[in-house]
């Protein structure tokens, strides 16, 4: 008798069996099929049209971020449990011999590596802020950024990947406009997702702060209304999955990265971020595993 899996593992098994995702042997790290990637690219393109509408500068980012940039984001203070750091080999011949010996013997070879100048990027927009250092033009700037991100939270829930694609529309500039970008983006994002047949609702949200006081920090973020998510049922009606978030950062990035408005004040920023993989999986669950059978209007929005 086959024992019923939890709904998360069950969905992942179905995605594996349909060869939409491929197992790498590590929870949260998957290969994508051409069909899957075609949907993900179409979702990316929806965001790209948005970026074009607001005159955003487009920046495609690598999945890695400069360590110095990472340090300035203060990420380690809030989310140490999600971090991945790149370590490299800087040794000589003798160190190399020992390295190979340890690999062969199943020993602790990573201990011989040293931190490199890069860290795995936990959010697409982080790499953007040092590029904005200095004085912004009047009215600020819009950016469209996308790239793979990493968060160390291995899970059998296929929507909770360790390596996943994020696509963001970011505003950097005046405080009022930043707040408005957050609010308008939430509405526009929900509308885009509704138009492709997803039942998405907005909910105040908090980041998963680390530690024993994490819940208290999260409560503060909720009280201040800084973060909203668009959530939709994928594996569970009771615990819907966030597929987008709209965040007001205030001066959290403007201050450490020395970004100024046209009048010399510390710039504020806000972003709307889309989890491209989560939206892709939500579409597969909602409309079926064969995109050629999806409703005409949904296909038209995504693929034409």
């Amino acid at each position: 008798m086959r024992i019923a899996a939890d709904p998360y593992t069950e969905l992942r098994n179905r995605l594996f069996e349909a060869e939409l995702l491929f197992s790498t042997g590590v929870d949260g790290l998957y290969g994508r099929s051409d069909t899957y990637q075609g949907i993900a690219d179409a979702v990316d393109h929806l965001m790209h049209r948005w970026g074009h509408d607001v005159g955003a500068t487009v920046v495609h980012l690598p999945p890695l971020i400069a360590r110095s940039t990472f340090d300035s984001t203060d990420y380690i203070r809030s989310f140490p449990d999600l971090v991945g750091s790149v370590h490299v080999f800087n040794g000589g011949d003798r160190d190399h011999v020992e390295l190979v010996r340890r690999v062969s013997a199943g020993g602790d070879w990573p201990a011989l590596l040293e931190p490199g100048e890069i860290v795995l990027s936990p959010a697409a927009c982080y790499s953007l802020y040092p590029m904005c250092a200095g004085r912004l033009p009047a009215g600020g700037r819009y950016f469209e950024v996308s790239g793979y991100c990493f968060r160390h939270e291995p899970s059998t829930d296929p929507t909770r990947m360790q390596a996943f694609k994020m696509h963001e529309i970011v505003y950097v500039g005046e405080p009022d406009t930043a707040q408005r970008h957050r609010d308008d983006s939430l509405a526009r994002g929900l509308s885009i997702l509704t138009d492709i047949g997803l039942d998405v609702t907005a909910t105040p949200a908090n980041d998963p702060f680390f530690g024993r006081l994490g819940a208290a920090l999260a409560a503060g973020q909720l009280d201040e209304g800084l973060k909203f998510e668009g959530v939709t049922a994928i594996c569970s009606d009771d615990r819907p999955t966030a597929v987008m978030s709209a965040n007001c950062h205030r001066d959290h990035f403007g201050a450490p990265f020395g970004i100024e408005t046209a009048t010399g004040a510390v710039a504020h920023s806000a972003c709307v971020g889309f989890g491209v993989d989560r939206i892709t999986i939500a579409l597969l669950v909602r409309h079926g595993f064969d995109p050629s059978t999806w409703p005409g209007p949904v296909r038209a929005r995504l693929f034409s």
Partner: protein
Amino acid sequence: MSEERVLRDQIRQVIDEHARLAVPIATLDDQADLFSAGMTSHASVNVMLALEDCFEVEFPESMLRKSTFQSVAAIGAALSELQSVSA
């Protein structure tokens, strides 16, 4: 010096070292709101850990709220409660 006074002075010492207030703690009374005085949420984590080291206690989950660390008086009340339980 009363026991309570010693406790308050120790709490003020921890706050001085870890809360990163915008103003000296000496200028604030025991009821003053530390968050309003510039203590960030993250600094409050440092204060919590330093208090646990200093007083050899562990704040239970029921006390892990911002209000527990809101003022010298609030911290004093929480510590008194913990110490009376362990005494």
